[in-house]
C-alpha cells in the first residue's frame, strides 16, 4: 500500500517538503531539550511527545527516492533511510543524542568550575575540575616530592626523544634499529628509571656511566676504524672504573661540596608516571617471555613442552590480583633474611609473567595458523630451528597476531591499577586516595572521568599504532 507515489519525476516537490519536515522535527526536539520550550504544548501530552517522531518519519518517507541523482541524498538514503524501520531508528538515535547532550555539556563544561583552589569554589551543579587541578600533581607524580619532580619530567622527555630516534634514522642505520629498540633502549630506560628517578648515591654510578660513554664516544671519532672495536670494548669500561674508584666524587657529598640526588623510595612513586613505568617494563618483558613460551609449547622435547604448558596454564588460571598479593606477601618468605627485592620490581615481574602467558597463547595461535609448507620450505633450504623461526616463521606469525597482541597489551595497561594491593598507587590508586581526603569528599565522579579520559588516550594511541603496524607489514596482495 502506498499513500503517495513518489518516483523520479515528481520527487522534487516532496523532497523540499520532506527536508523541511525533518528539520522541523529536529528543531522541535532541540528547542525542547536545550531551552525547555515545548512548542507543541497545546496538544495532549502523549501526542506532543511523539509528534517530532511522526513529522520526521513523514519527512524521511518523502525523501526516500531511489537513484534521485542528488549525490548526498542518495548517500543518506542508502545508509540511514533504507526502509521505514531504519528511518525510525535513525530519528530515535538523533533525538537521543540531542536530548542527552545538554545534560552532558552542562555537567562537563557549562556548569563546571575550574577556578579557585579549594572545595568552596565548586558551588555549581556541574563538575568540579578545580579538584583535578589541585590534585593534578599527585595524580601525575604520586607521592614523589615536589622539588624532585623535574627528574621524572627530564627522564620521560629524554626517553621519549630517544624513542623517536627510529623516525629519523637514515637508511644506513636502519638495520641497527631492531637492536636499538630491543636491547639498548630498554637498557637506557632502565638506567634512567633506576638511577635517575630513584636517585640517592646510586645515581653517581649512572653519572659515571654517562660521562664515560660521552667522553669515549667523542674521543672515538679520532680513532681509526681499524681499532674502533677494541677501543669501544676497552675504553668506556676503563673510564668508568677510573671514575668510580679513583676519582670517586661520592666523597664530595659527605664533605658537603656537592649535593647528591635525593633518594626517593619506590613506595613514594605513583600516579600516571608509575602507570607509564609499570606498563612500559611489563610490555617489554612479557613479549620475549611469551614468545619463548609459545615456541617452547610447540617444542619436540617433552620436558620443555610440559614445563611451558604447566607455566602457561598456571598463570592463566590465577587472577592477577592474587598474583600481586602473593608477590608481596608470599614471595619474601622464600627469600633469605637479608635479601630484599623492591616492591615495584616484584610487581613488574609478577605482571610480566602473568601477561606473558597470555601473549604466549596469542603467538601460538599465529604459529599454528602458518601452513606446514612454510616450515618445509625453510627446512629444505637448510635452515635449522633458530634460523627457520627467526627469519621465516616468527615474522609471519607475529604479523598475523598483531591485533591479538595489541589486545593483550591494552588489557595489561588497564590492569595496572591492581597494583594497589601491594600499596603502590598509580593514577587510579591516587584517585581513590584523594577521594577519601576529608577536605575533598564527594568528587569521585570527576576523578574517575579524568582517569577514564587519560586511559582512553593511552589505549587509543596504542590501538592506532598497532593498526598502523598491521598496514605497514601487509605484503600479501
Amino acid at each position, binding site marked *: 500500500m502506498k499513500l503517495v507515489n513518489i518516483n523520479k519525476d515528481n520527487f522534487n516537490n516532496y523532497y523540499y517538503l520532506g527536508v523541511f519536515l525533518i528539520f522541523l522535527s529536529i528543531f522541535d526536539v532541540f528547542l525542547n531539550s536545550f531551552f525547555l520550550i515545548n512548542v507543541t504544548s497545546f496538544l495532549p501530552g502523549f501526542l506532543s511527545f511523539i509528534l517530532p517522531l511522526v513529522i520526521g518519519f513523514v519527512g524521511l518517507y518523502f525523501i526516500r527516492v531511489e537513484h534521485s541523482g542528488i549525490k548526498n541524498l542518495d548517500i543518506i538514503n542508502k545508509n540511514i533511510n533504507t526502509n521505514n524501520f531504519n528511518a525510525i531508528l535513525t530519528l530515535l538515535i538523533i533525538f537521543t543524542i540531542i536530548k542527552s547532550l545538554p545534560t552532558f555539556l552542562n555537567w562537563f563544561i557549562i556548569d563546571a568550575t575550574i577556578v579557585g583552589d579549594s572545595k568552596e569554589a565548586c558551588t555549581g551543579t556541574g563538575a568540579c575540575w578545580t579538584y583535578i587541578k589541585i590534585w593534578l600533581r599527585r595524580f601525575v607524580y604520586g607521592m614523589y616530592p615536589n622539588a624532585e619532580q623535574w627528574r621524572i619530567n627530564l627522564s620521560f622527555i629524554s626517553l621519549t626523544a630517544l624513542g623517536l630516534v627510529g623516525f629519523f634514522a637514515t637508511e644506513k642505520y636502519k638495520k641497527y634499529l631492531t637492536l636499538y629498540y630491543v636491547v639498548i633502549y630498554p637498557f637506557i630506560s632502565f638506567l634512567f628509571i633506576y638511577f635517575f628517578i630513584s636517585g640517592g648515591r646510586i645515581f653517581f654510578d649512572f653519572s659515571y656511566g654517562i660521562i664515560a660513554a660521552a667522553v669515549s664516544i667523542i674521543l672515538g671519532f679520532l680513532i681509526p676504524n681499524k681499532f674502533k672495536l677494541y677501543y669501544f670494548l676497552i675504553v668506556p669500561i676503563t673510564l668508568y672504573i677510573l671514575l668510580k674508584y679513583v676519582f670517586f666524587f661520592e666523597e664530595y657529598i659527605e664533605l658537603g661540596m656537592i649535593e647528591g640526588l635525593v633518594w626517593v623510595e619506590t613506595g613514594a612513586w605513583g600516579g600516571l608516571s608509575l602507570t607509564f613505568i609499570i606498563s612500559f617494563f611489563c610490555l617489554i618483558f612479557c613479549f620475549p617471555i611469551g614468545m619463548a613460551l609459545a615456541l617452547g609449547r610447540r617444542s619436540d622435547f617433552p620436558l620443555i613442552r610440559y614445563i611451558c604448558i604447566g607455566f602457561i596454564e598456571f598463570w592463566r588460571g590465577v587472577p592477577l590480583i592474587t598474583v600481586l598479593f602473593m608477590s608481596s606477601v608470599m614471595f619474601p618468605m622464600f627469600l633469605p633474611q637479608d635479601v630484599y627485592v623492591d616492591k615495584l620490581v616484584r610487581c613488574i615481574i609478577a605482571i610480566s609473567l602473568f601477561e606473558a602467558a597470555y601473549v604466549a597463547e596469542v603467538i601460538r595461535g599465529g604459529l599454528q595458523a602458518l*601452513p606446514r*609448507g*612454510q616450515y*618445509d*620450505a*625453510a*627446512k*629444505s*633450504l*637448510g*635452515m*635449522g630451528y633458530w*634460523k627457520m623461526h627467526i*627469519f*621465516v616463521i616468527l*615474522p*609471519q606469525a607475529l*604479523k598475523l597476531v598483531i591485533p591479538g597482541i595489541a589486545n593483550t597489551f591494552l588489557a595489561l595497561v588497564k590492569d595496572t591499577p591492581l597494583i594497589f594491593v601491594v600499596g603502590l598507587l598509580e593514577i587510579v590508586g591516587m584517585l581513590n586516595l584523594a577521594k577519601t581526603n576529608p577536605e575533598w569528599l564527594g568528587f569521585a565522579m570527576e576523578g574517575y572521568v579524568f582517569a577514564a579520559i587519560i586511559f582512553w588516550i593511552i589505549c587509543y594511541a596504542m590501538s592506532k599504532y598497532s593498526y598502523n603496524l598491521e598496514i605497514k*607489514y601487509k*605484503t*600479501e*596482495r
Partner: protein
Amino acid sequence: MSNPIIQIKDVNKWFGDFQVLKNINLEVEKNKKIVVCGPSGSGKSTLIRCINRLEEHQEGQIVVDGNELSENTKNIEQIRAEVGMVFQQFNLFPHLSILDNCTLAPIWVKQMPKKDAEELAMQHLEKVQISDQAFKYPGQLSGGQQQRCAIARALCMEPKIMLFDEPTSALDPEMIKEVLDAMVNLAKAGMTMIVVTHEMGFAKEVADEVIFMDEGMIVERAETKEFFANPKSDRTKLFLSQIL
C-alpha cells in the same frame, strides 16, 4: 659403475598403521633425471620428501651424497642445503620480496656476503625469466611466476640434487609450460633431478629413467623410451592408458 649420489635401500615407512613405503630400493647416479609417476596416494611425494628428511623413514637406509640419513645425523641442515626442493604449493615466504626469498638462505645458511647473494639470485631469476619481478612480493605474482621463483630460490643454494614435488599440479594449464620450460633448461644444464609429476610430455623430453609407483611400491623402473613403448606390468599399462 660410478658411485650413485642417492642410495635408497629397503626403505619402509608407516603413517600410523598405514604403510606408505614398502621395500623401496633406488639408486640415482649423478646428472641423471628421474621422473616418478603413479596414482595419487602411491607414496611418490613421501619418497622424495624422505630424501631430504622432511619425512623420516622407519626402516632401511637412505644415503645422500655419502651421508646416511638417520636420527643421529648431526649435519642434516648441511645435507638439506645440498638438496634443493620445489613444492606443489610453491611455499614462497610471503613476507619477503622475491629477491629476499632467494637471498635469505644463501646469506644466513651459507654465510654468503649480501652483495654476492644478490648477484647470484639475479642470475638465477634471469634464468627463469622473472628478474623484472625481483622487488615484488610473492602475493603479487601469478602462480607460474611464483613457481619459477621457487625454482630460482632452490637453485640459489647451488644444490647438487633437485627434487620436484608435483611442481605443476597447482597451476593453471597455460602456466604449466613456463614452469616446465624452466625445468627443461635446468635438466639440460646437467642437474641431478628427481621429479614427481604427471606431465608425461616432460618425462619423454628430459627423463633418463621413469619410475612407476603404486601402493607404496616401485612397480616398474625403465629407460624412458622403453617405459612408454612397452611397459611390462599390467598396472603400468593401465595407468599409461588413462593418463596419455
